[in-house]
């Protein structure tokens, strides 16, 4: 916990932006105004932020269908994202991608992805590029406890080990893939890291609801990978606050499960408690950030709602660079 005051504020702010972005989307989606499939990242904020606070724009990440948190943490424009989800022509992907396809190569965010498991090999490629550049940069691929069963994920791990790619396989174990529990779908029971270890990588584990656990773990992982030891894997135990997609009635949850995780496994509450306990920040500073963030999200929604819509001609552009 050697974080500066600024770093602490930044981290909290990023988590709060993700949280409010999503809480707001959850409400807006119910009105029917937003189209498509939206998967909310709420509950996992500590992971995205605890990871990305270590990175700069030359480090690359590859994300998933549940990508808003990764995008925000890596520095994608929040208003551009909101506009994208609204399908505006001013969205970060001009309204062509939507929630599942947000990307911004300039900040090292190589794309959310609708195909579960597709990101891992892409991360290996990005890592091979970093290796070739020789500047100690890394690529991090985020995967869920469901995605870790896709063949591409396994191939990518072996390929990274063989090519000594500076790739970090980051597993966010939120215990569910859609409506199925990890205890069923991952043969090694709840343990994804041990399987990654079976591929010959060094692995780490951490608490994915605690920013400090993630941040400290990632420092070690990154030191190791940046030093040229090849790939590594890390698994964070985390929680998904909402359904798999918006509209999911979540009948697979246990009684009181959601209340419990909202109460005891809330990354923001935990951050506040730890900061208060260790007297790192005056808690009113965080309250101030909360107000700011809410205003940002309000503005983002207002702007998204008012932003220009794409036109018919836009369908035909952006397939190729040269036609």
């Amino acid at each position, binding site marked *: 916990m050697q974080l500066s005051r600024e770093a602490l504020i930044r981290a909290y702010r990023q988590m709060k932006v993700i949280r409010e972005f999503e809480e707001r989307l959850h409400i807006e989606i119910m009105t029917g105004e937003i189209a*498509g499939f939206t998967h909310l990242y709420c509950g996992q904020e500590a992971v995205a932020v605890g990871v990305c606070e270590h990175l700069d724009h030359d480090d690359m990440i590859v994300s998933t269908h549940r990508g808003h948190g990764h995008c925000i943490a890596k520095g994608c424009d929040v208003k551009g994202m909101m506009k994208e989800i609204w399908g505006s022509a001013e969205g970060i992907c001009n309204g062509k991608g939507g929630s599942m396809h947000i990307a911004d190569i300039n900040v090292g965010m190589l794309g959310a992805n609708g*195909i579960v498991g597709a990101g891992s090999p892409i991360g290996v490629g990005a890592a091979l590029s970093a290796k070739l550049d020789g500047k100690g940069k890394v690529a991090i691929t985020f995967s869920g406890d469901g995605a870790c069963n896709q063949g591409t994920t396994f191939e990518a791990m072996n390929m990274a080990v063989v090519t000594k790619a500076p790739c970090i396989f980051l597993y966010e174990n939120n215990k569910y893939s859609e409506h*199925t529990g990890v205890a069923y779908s991952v043969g090694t029971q709840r343990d994804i890291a041990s399987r990654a270890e079976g591929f010959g990588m060094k692995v780490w584990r951490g608490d994915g609801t605690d920013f400090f656990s993630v941040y400290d773990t990632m420092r070690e992982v990154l030191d190791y990978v940046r030093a040229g030891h090849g790939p590594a894997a890390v698994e964070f135990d985390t929680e998904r606050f909402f359904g798999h997609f918006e509209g999911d009635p979540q009948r*697979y949850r246990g009684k009181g499960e959601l209340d419990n995780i909202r109460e005891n496994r809330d990354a923001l509450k935990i951050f506040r408690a730890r900061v208060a306990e260790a007297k790192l920040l005056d808690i009113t500073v965080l309250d101030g950030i909360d107000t700011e963030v809410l205003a940002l999200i309000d503005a983002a929604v207002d702007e998204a709602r008012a932003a220009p819509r794409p036109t018919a001609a836009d369908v035909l552009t952006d397939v190729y660079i040269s036609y």
Partner: protein
Amino acid sequence: MAQMMYREAVLQTLFAEMERDERVVVLGEDIVGGMGTAGGPEAIGGIWSTSVGLFGKFGKDRVIDTPISESAIVGAAAGLALAGKRPVAELMFADFIGVSLDQIWNQIGKFRYMFGGKTTCPAVIRMAYGAGFNAAAQHSQSVYALLTAMPGIKVVMPSTPADVKGLLTQAIRDDDPVIFMEHKALYGAMGEVPDGDYTIPFGHARLCRAGQDVTIVTLGLMVGLCEAVADKLAAEGIGCDVIDLRTTSPMDEEAILDSVEVTGRLVVVDESPPRCSLASDIAGLVTTRAFASLKAPPGLVTAPHTPIPFARELESQYLPSPGKIEAAVRQTLAWR
């Protein structure tokens, strides 16, 4: 006759066939739903609600919930079929043929031929296809042209609840591998479904509207759009044959050719992009086999050669619409 939704027709047919034949096994992601959770099995029953209740009735060895491993799902169906079972595998989205194509194309579709005709592989792969939900480029595709191009697999595309029942029953009983494509936007469609056991043979199109002026060939979700256009034009005295292909492989070539021999004019309405598409396939068929009858260039109403965009305005522009279909019919009629 019962009124039911397209999705209910899927579920009831699976149920009936599983009862009738104990070799029928279903497998796929979340088709039970709730495995390994506090809520327990059957919390869901498939994200399309097409397998609700099967697990409770037929048990875990015949209703197999799988990890997210599409190659292994289709491959397991291949192995089950070679071993004498009648697997019905579900790909949640047709777009996931991308991660499982080898098992469909190079395995299931080729066993019979490669093995000298000495084996069967009666696997059914169900998949939800099509656009209309703003699910963007990776969750909206209509992959039937790609699959139709592949020898050794039959491709079935029901457009009504009644056809779902007849065609899915046939698919499960068919000794050849079958891709069964269900349009996402049709799951909620209601229709009359005949009682009792029946099958619809593959390669027999359905004439939805009859007319003398233009032949409209289409399938899946597009059928309803074409019917609407035909009805509108009928009021003006323009008669359209609307042919619902029902299956694209085998395809009812005779139905198409017979109709074009009468009308001399062809419009194909196809939800996929245009290159090497079903639309061009049919245009090629008609031009090579009914050239003398053809009075005007065929009108091909397809999606453009682009991925599927997200925003509402873009997706609706991307898809064939009644307006575009009508325009194509009028253009064909206006020729010369």
